[in-house]
């Protein structure tokens, strides 16, 4: 993984609560055995009509979305399934952060493992950001993970919080598995004292 560095971007507003992972990437695109090629299908059924033509009203089909790296979404973003295809698809489209008032647990963990940053803000800031995105579509925000700050066009800094370990992994560009593997002695010791339960092979 690359190190997660600060960046500035326009916001793509999607003012819908409870956007579930079936909207982010419909299940019929999960037949793949690869992680790649999902960016074109992100929000597929909101983005394209039955013939596969882009729906002009949907925000991702509008010029303002081109090159944008920040998605601004309603409450409880990413609810539903555990499919990691959801953050893969958002990242492959080009998003690097999603701002909301809350995220579903599994989505948040999946996103952090793939360097898609979930940014939780208060209801007041959330409303203000939607207002800004509506009035000034070109307005850019800066996402600074190291400082855990979202910087608004007027220079104000909004603090946000990210799990300290996940933040460390993102800033260093490392994944969790290396850390877990380094705990080999502890895992072996646990296995040695653990009560045997099942053997799925038997």
């Amino acid at each position, binding site marked *: 993984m690359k190190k997660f560095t600060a960046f500035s971007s326009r916001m793509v507003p999607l*003012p*819908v*609560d*409870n956007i*579930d992972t*079936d*909207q982010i990437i*419909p*299940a*019929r695109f*999960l*037949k*793949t*055995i*690869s*992680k790649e090629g999902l960016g074109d299908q992100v929000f597929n*059924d909101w983005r394209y009509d*039955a013939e596969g033509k882009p729906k002009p009203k949907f925000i991702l089909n509008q010029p303002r979305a081109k090159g944008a790296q920040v998605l601004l979404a*309603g*409450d*409880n973003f990413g*609810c*539903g*399934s*555990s*499919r*990691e295809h959801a953050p893969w698809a958002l990242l492959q489209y080009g998003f690097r952060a999603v701002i909301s008032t*809350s*995220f*579903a*647990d*599994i989505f948040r*963990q*999946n996103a952090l*493992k*793939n360097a898609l940053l979930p940014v939780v803000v208060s209801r007041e800031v959330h409303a203000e950001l*939607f207002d800004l995105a509506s009035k000034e579509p070109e307005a850019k925000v800066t996402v600074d993970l190291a400082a855990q700050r979202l910087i608004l066009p007027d220079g104000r800094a909004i603090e946000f919080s990210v*799990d*300290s*370990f996940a933040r*460390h992994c993102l800033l260093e560009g490392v*994944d*969790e*598995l290396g*850390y*877990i*593997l380094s*705990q080999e002695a*502890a*895992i072996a010791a*646990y*296995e040695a004292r*653990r*009560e045997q*339960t*099942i*053997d*799925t*092979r*038997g």
Partner: protein
Amino acid sequence: MKPRTIIEKIWDAHVVAEQAGAPALVFIDLHLVHEVTSPQAFDGLRRRGLKVRRPDLTLATADHNVPTHDRSLPILDQVSARQVAQLETNCAEFGVPCYSLGSERQGIVHVIGPELGLTQPGMTVVCGDSHTATHGAFGALAFGIGTSEVENVLATQCLLQRKPKTYQVQVNGTLRPGVAAKDIILALIAKIGTGGGTGSVFEYCGAAIRTLSMEERMTVCNMSIEGGARAGLVAPDDVTYQYMCGRPFAPKGAAWDAAVARWKQLPTDNGATYDKQVTLDAGALEPMITFGTSLGMGMPVAAAVPDPATVADPIERESLRKALRYMDLEAGKPLLGHAIDAVFIGSCTNGRITDLRAAASVLKGRKVSPKVRVLVVPGSVQVRKQAESEGLDEIFRAAGAEWREAGCSMCIAMNGDQLRPGEYSVSTSNRNFEGRQGPGGRTFLASPLTAAASAVAGAVTDARTLL
């Protein structure tokens, strides 16, 4: 010692290591694997030159993406066929037991774990599927994980986790006739919202939960994620032990007695406290149905669809409007009598034998409406066999329903079992999201009783009028 909840007891018993600045390293007792969320994880192992650390604690099956019609034929969809074949190849290469198509033990991953006796009280259970909480019915801490975590568990049998908050769901009283376990969980989610349990694990307690069978408890725990909780569980009791005793992977003889003695230590201590709490009165519950495209949009079956104009929050209001537009429903009107095109009875929520018996009790001696396509999809090969030995398949066929092979089927609509655009279903599955049962499809979620009654009427129906 400080009194602890069952959630804390299981957590404490599985912490392998805890270092400052990092989440706890937690050991996993059972890892269930299926074809959709595992291929990229096995690829990751190959890239790093790693093995599966504990194949003896790992089990795979093919369920999400398998056809439910004639099993003697090959899978027609080449992409699906390749994914199932990849699962078989990966499991063979890494030594993981796999009950794929053709196995007597194949089925939905959350149906076969319990029916084989693999799911046991006090365990940590994970699977790359959000409905893993189903296994919580046995007093296990069971939760869904993403593919990166699948890879972590395959490689190390461990996960990095922050300790979850505890959330007591107290369900008092007794369900009235015609009201099902499904209605408890739909009512809970309608009350607390789809994000209500975020960051928490539910413990379902109270008289109403104690009187539920194991399969009913599985229905309740299954949908914990729809209330935002990654896991939900029920403390084990004699109902649990009776269900488990004699199952293929359950302990035998002296080991069984020792296991039960250990499991009896699990229930929450007197005086233990929870981070959050909610109470439901089972005696006041009606059969429930969802009207919208989010699980919080549920109501008693005879109620009227709510009016977005009464919602104060602007995004919430617009979300409800969007849902009603998608569902093509009018605010203020009841759903009862709303015509439907399909009924789906099955899934990890309601695809077990008692669910099929409940549906059959309504369909026996009746015909489904000629306007409605009815799919009855058993949760596993074993459920299918049991149903056939009881003659349930004959009841379904005689009523005009389709009797299918085991799989996830129209719950996730990956395998070709799906609604056409604009069609309405009453479904016993767990998600009413836009397009979940096929692009443009519209889903009303309900219990097997409500689904079967609606199949007969060809419209949304209160099953109590047929019982």
